[in-house]
């Protein structure tokens, strides 16, 4: 089957980094601006890049009618989904930032400030992702350094955690549930290993 990769533009922050990383891999990401065009495009793979604040992001997803479309494609039709950074965080039931927001709720968990014994936040820079459970999404990826830039993390059921990272405490850095994948770091900023991660996602059939 021909692959169709949709890149969701929430309209906040910079999606160019992810777009450019995908183009460097010779993929043809299609940028979608609202839920209607996402449904119309009928993708096989969806990437939700996220930088910015969670309130703005959820607002924009709602306003652009992405939430309904995503529920239809990812939950009902099992389209492969990758959420990056904030895009991973909004998979949880709730996200706390200034106040508590209801998020997509695809993963049993909530997102809040990383409790890390007084290390600086945001957690900024390169850190190791320890792979706790191998699968096809993580082919040829072992314990590797990736680039992080975030303050909040997802506290979730351990059954979906496939990667974790230590920053004063262990936190979940990669989650997987069926066709849904989320990563807290930025593969688009993480060199060869980040590319490999994006490749593995795109290779899912």
């Amino acid at each position, binding site marked *: 089957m021909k692959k169709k990769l949709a890149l969701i533009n929430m309209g906040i922050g910079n999606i160019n980094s992810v777009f450019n990383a995908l183009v460097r891999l010779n993929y043809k990401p299609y940028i979608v601006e609202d839920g209607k065009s996402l449904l119309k495009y009928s993708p096989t793979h969806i990437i939700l890049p996220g930088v910015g604040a969670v309130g703005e992001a959820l607002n924009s997803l709602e306003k652009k009618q992405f939430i309904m479309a995503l529920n239809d494609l990812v939950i009902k039709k099992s389209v492969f989904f990758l959420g990056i950074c904030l895009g991973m965080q909004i998979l949880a039931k709730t996200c706390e930032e200034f106040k508590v927001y209801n998020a997509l709720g695809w993963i049993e968990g909530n997102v809040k400030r990383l409790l890390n014994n007084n290390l600086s936040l945001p957690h900024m820079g390169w850190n190791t992702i320890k792979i706790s459970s191998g699968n096809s999404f993580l082919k040829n990826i072992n314990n590797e350094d990736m680039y992080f*830039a975030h303050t909040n993390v997802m506290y979730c059921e351990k059954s979906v955690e496939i990667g974790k990272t230590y920053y004063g405490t262990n936190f979940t850095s990669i989650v997987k549930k069926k066709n849904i994948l989320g990563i807290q770091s930025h593969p688009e900023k993480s060199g060869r290993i980040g590319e490999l991660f994006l490749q593995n996602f795109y290779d899912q059939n």
Partner: protein
Amino acid sequence: MYKRRLIPILFFRNGWMVRSQQFKIHQIIGDPYSHVERMKEWDVDELVILDISTDQNITHNRKDYKIKPVENILELIRKLSIESHMPLTFGGNIKNINDIETIICNGADKVAINTITNTNPNIITESAKIFGRQAIVSSIDYKIVEGKAIAFSDKGRIMLEEDPIELGKRLEGLGAGEILLQSIDNDGEARGYNYEIINNLVDSVSIPVIACSGAGNKFHILDCFNKTRAEAIAAGNIFHFTENAYPIFKAFLKINRSDIR
């Protein structure tokens, strides 16, 4: 394991990359594109580009240079974002939120702001709300005046009333996600970092600090990693005058410390 970063800073001025000394003397060291190209090859932890241009119109175009000056810095950022995966901070001459948005939408991951914060401190709060605080780097320049550290703005031209530590705390409160600390006295002097001020700042804020100014050799950088708790250490001039300086320094640091990528 969390890795502390070694960050090259490129100073862009009126179309060229320059080296900087005490924020006053600037010598052209070449074409911005070839400098950026080198950073890509070195696979740096992160890159900071600071635009310290003074003229709005770049008329300077010496005949003895084969290469033309870069007139549009945004084009350089775009090219970087298309061709490389380096985390990129861009700063300098930022006037408002629109400028921040333009820079981020052209491919920078973070912006560094300084002078505008004095007249409009809320720009930090507002932009952090839109782009996330991880995207907002507050830059602090300071100088020792009569034995006391004092913060400066506008490329070292305006003396402020706060010391860099007080200012750092205030910027954190406003929503800054990181602080880039530069010493005007040590800029380009190659005599080592000011460990005391760096540690004072690191101990006073709970956001990451990027310590800059003073690296003259690899031992200065290692010393700064050993003697301070700064999350990242930056340097400018030194990367331009030693062949393959970045990879060589990285290899040296890795022998001595485990928290280097």
